[in-house]
């Protein structure tokens, strides 16, 4: 058991190094090693899946003791990390072929595996210092992945790493404060120490830790790096970032609030609103704001990947909202949504990546009508957006339903409304996405576009099937989630393979029934549609514009400014930008540093000498004043 955890942790790192070396031999050797090692990680993960190791594994990597632990929740996240990484690596093989410089590719795969290893480390970490170490490794390795995306990605990556570092250092202060108190950072010791600490200490540490996680999870006021980084990163990296990396923030929040600080303790030290501790309540509001505002922003995007990036901010809002409810149903919903979001957002990013691979653009107004050319990608993307919009029977539905149910049980009407608004908005932007990419008029230059190569299709297929599997059988995931939450002191919620049986604290839900109902309705509508033909199928060009016949070279279908009228309505909201506030402060800081601080070094020898004399004079004056420094 001990060895296996260390092996699981070491596999991606060793794989990364071997990949780089393999790249020196031949690119196929490199690709093979990368795939094999990520496959091996998945294999190891599967071998020990769902085994609980509550104790502490003492490894001794890097000189300091590496504390590892597992519980079902870690397996949930490990599953997300390893599976998506494997798919991303497989997808990369063809997608990254366009990069000519082989050494760049070598380092690309190395960093991909390093990011995977760092995330495995974060999830397996059993104490805060191990956690923090891998957290930092994840930050800078993923930074290198982001800047692979070309010229614009450099600014995005820069913003990402600076914000990550700030967030990480906020965590660092909290960890150091905890260490000063406990002299041990193993989760159980920290939890024990926190249960005896003063309220102000607890609030400070928890807030500082949360700031670090909020940056990575892109919760609203700290999200500004995400839209840039996720849209500018190479297409195979975006699913890893959006699907997995930001989940680490959610995982961190889970560990902090339910591993280190229990809900009961939180209730004791701070006032409660809607029977939620005030801190968690504030987080709920931040998450809800993320959901609504990011949805609005996503609606207004012209860039397909940027749309998906804002959608990630909004969806991670659901995850955090669920986690912050503090009830078993809400937390389970949040965790489940983390898995679901990883699946469908990974799928969407890969599908959009496939489109970009063939067309070379991600500007939605330049695309359209690809459904005939890339039918397979279209189908996958369709499944993805259905899942994202939360329509049964696909997987987004169940987790969102759980979060809504949790909010209803807590009678938090405003948050519920905001969550619904986000969900409705999601319909708008996913429709925009699929319409602009696949429907409408096909630009002439894409006449020869084909569907993507098989190696890129496989990951998309796997993810597309997963949306169905986890949608119809939510029990598969609830298994680990419920088991794990029991360990963290939650009352287990009843579940079965197809959903949630009747008679528990909440309403019953069986996805397959709902799906059956929906299917029946769909079939009925379809039959009606067939039986009563009122429409006649015509060619796209069987139409007139300004009295002229349409020809393929005439662009009649514009998808620019798709929701312009809606945009006008929400304009006052969109014009607010937290980024401007940040930039203002950064500029102020820069000006202050440039014009006041560094001009101490005037280049003038007399000035320099007088500094010396001033210091000596101050010292002498201190002596004359009786040796008192103040």
């Amino acid at each position, binding site marked *: 058991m001990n060895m296996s955890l260390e092996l699981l942790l070491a596999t991606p790192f060793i794989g990364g190094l071997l990949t780089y070396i393999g790249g020196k031999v031949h690119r196929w050797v490199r690709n093979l090693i990368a795939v094999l090692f990520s496959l091996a990680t998945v294999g190891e993960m599967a071998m020990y899946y769902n085994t609980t190791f509550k104790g502490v594994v003492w490894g001794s990597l890097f*000189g300091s003791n590496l504390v590892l632990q597992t519980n079902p929740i870690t397996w949930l996240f490990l599953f997300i990390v390893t599976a998506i990484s494997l798919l991303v690596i497989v997808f990369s093989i063809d997608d990254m072929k366009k990069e000519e410089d082989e050494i760049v590719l070598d380092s690309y795969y190395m960093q991909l595996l390093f990011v995977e290893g760092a995330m495995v480390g974060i999830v397996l970490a059993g104490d805060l210092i191990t956690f923090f170490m891998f957290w930092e490794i994840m930050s800078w390795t993923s930074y290198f992945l982001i800047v692979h995306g070309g010229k614009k*990605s450099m600014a995005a990556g820069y913003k990402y790493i600076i914000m990550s570092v700030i967030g990480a250092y906020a965590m660092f202060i909290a960890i150091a404060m905890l260490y000063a108190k406990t002299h041990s950072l193993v989760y159980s010791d920290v939890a024990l120490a926190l249960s005896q600490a003063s309220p102000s200490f607890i609030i400070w540490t928890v807030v500082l830790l949360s700031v670090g996680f909020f940056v990575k999870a892109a919760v609203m006021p700290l999200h500004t790096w995400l839209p840039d980084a996720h849209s500018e990163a190479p297409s195979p990296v975006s699913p890893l970032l959006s699907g997995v990396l930001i989940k680490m923030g959610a995982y961190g929040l889970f560990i902090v609030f339910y591993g280190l600080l229990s809900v009961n303790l939180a209730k004791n030290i701070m006032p409660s609103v809607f029977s939620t501790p005030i801190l968690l309540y504030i987080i709920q509001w931040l998450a809800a704001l993320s959901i609504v505002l990011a949805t609005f922003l996503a609606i207004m995007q012209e860039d397909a990947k940027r749309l998906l990036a804002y959608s990630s901010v909004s969806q991670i809002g659901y995850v955090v909202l669920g986690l912050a409810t503090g009830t078993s149903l809400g937390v389970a919903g949040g965790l489940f949504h983390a898995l679901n979001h990883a699946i469908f957002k990974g799928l969407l990013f890969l599908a959009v990546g496939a489109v970009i691979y063939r067309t070379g653009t991600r500007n939605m107004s330049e695309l359209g009508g690809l459904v005939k050319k890339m039918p397979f990608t279209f189908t996958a993307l369709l499944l993805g957006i259905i899942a994202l919009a939360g329509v049964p029977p696909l997987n987004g539905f169940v987790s969102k339903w759980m979060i809504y149910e949790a909010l209803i049980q807590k009678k938090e009407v405003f948050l519920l409304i905001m969550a619904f608004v986000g969900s409705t908005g999601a319909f708008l932007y996913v429709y925009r996405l699929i319409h602009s990419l696949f429907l409408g008029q096909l630009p002439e230059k894409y006449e020869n576009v084909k569907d993507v190569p098989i190696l890129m299709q496989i990951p998309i297929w796997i993810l597309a099937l997963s949306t169905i599997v986890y949608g119809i059988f939510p029990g598969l995931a609830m298994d680990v989630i419920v088991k794990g939450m029991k360990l963290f002191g939650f009352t287990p919620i009843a579940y079965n393979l197809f959903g949630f049986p009747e008679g528990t604290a909440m309403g019953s839900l069986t996805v397959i029934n709902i799906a059956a109902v929906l299917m029946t309705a769909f079939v009925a509508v379809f039959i009606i549609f067939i039986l009563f033909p009122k429409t006649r199928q015509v060619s796209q060009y069987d139409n007139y514009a300004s009295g002229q016949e349409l020809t393929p070279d005439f662009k009649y279908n514009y998808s620019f400014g798709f929701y312009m009228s809606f945009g006008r309505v929400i304009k006052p909201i969109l014009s607010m930008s937290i980024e401007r506030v940040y930039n203002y402060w950064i500029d102020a800081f820069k000006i202050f540093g440039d014009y006041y601080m560094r001009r101490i070094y005037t280049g003038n020898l007399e*000035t320099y*000498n007088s500094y010396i004399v001033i210091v000596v004079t101050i*010292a002498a004056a201190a002596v004359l004043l009786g040796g008192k420094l103040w």
Partner: protein
Amino acid sequence: MVNLANPILLIVIPLLFVFLIAFSSAFSKSAAKYLPIIAFGINVVVAMLLVPEVLKNGLVLSTTAGFKPPIAIDMIVDKLALFLVIIASVLGFVVSIYNVAYIDEEPEEKFYALFTLLITGIIWMIITGDLFNLFVAFEVTSIAAFGLVGFHRDKGSVEAGFKYLVMGAIGGSLLLVGIIMLYAATGTLNIIDVAQKSAELTFQQKFLAYALIFVGLGIEGALFPLNAWLPDAHPAAPSSVSSILSGIMTTAAIYAIIRITNIIFDYNQIYLFLMFFALLTLIFGEIAAYYQKDIKRMLAYSTIGQTGLFFFAFTIHSTNGLQGAFLQIINHSVSKSMLFLVVGAMIVQVGSRNIEDFVGLGRKMKVSSFFLAIGMFSLMGMPPFFGFWSKLKIIFAALQHSNALMIGSVVIILLMSVVEGAYFFKLLQMMFFGKAEQDREIKEASFGMLVPVVILGFILLFISFYPTPVLDFAHQAASDLMNKNYINLALKLGGL
């Protein structure tokens, strides 16, 4: 049988070589190139031989001229001094190798003589047990450094050299006045003896002397606002010299401040005062570094920042803080010297010190850039590199005292780390992912310049992935210093 584990050899052998080098051109033109390598090779061996002795006894003391201290001058190597000596010798050895390929400007033998003298002076400063000897070592180091900074004899280096000289000379004089005042008060120059006798003096009596010593050493040790020479001198010097200046010389001066503060002036109030200096040094260094266009100037300002960081760790005034300080010293010495060496090799290829010209270098000079990245990551304190452990120890040690001052300082340190990350990442991303406008003919650095970089890089990687011995050793050194074992052991061994 000569006992090779004798600290005096650490000074005497290189000094002998200084003379050999100065006269070597009479016999062979190229001998001067290789003599420093031999000198510091021997030094590394001697330092390594000292390791078991120091670990056994806690301290090695040797006297000169057959007298006993405090009359005779003595050399004391305890754990702290030992690891600085090892760093200095190894850096001297490695940079000497680098010099062979790097220095092509006449008069070579003078350069090598001064270079050897510089490192000898640094080692001398570290191991001396006598205050006046400290002054002499300080001046030897300074004069060698003045000469080396002006070695290129072009506009910038002459100006930097002159400014450095004036400030250094003032600093030396202040240091001497301080030492003499201590002598007047106690009647002895031996550090251990002064420590014992000054215990009877009051705070006020020692204060002015201490302040003058502090200012004198602080000028060399790059403490704000006494460090104005540094950002001029480090870029102006040849890169190999900058590497030594940045890597170990400022550190040696800080080491002297640490030692003197610890054994003569160990009052709680003074640490708050020093912390003020440390934080100012950190803030001004890092912020100024952010705006630099000249890569060596940027690294020089970063040195100021790092110096502030480890000086801050010292002013926490606890064993853990000192441990953090020593770890940071190791980290800074190895990483920053390596950075200067790499940057020197790059400047040779690029022909410019402007950061803008380093665009796309990551693809042309792969090995160099790789080690540059490692060094920068270590300085930023990114795991898994060694800088992470030192920063971790410093922050943990600082927050052991959970008062507002310490928390404020930690916030400042971390903010400045962000600034540091900002300029290092700016450079790294430009080098690795930027594309140059026109394709330039840039080759990898020559083998002779790559070897030292790789040696230092592997040392850094080794201590990054296996830091346990270093952490333990630093902890022992720190607890020795905190408990003033130094004085007790020296009294026992030296028969004072």
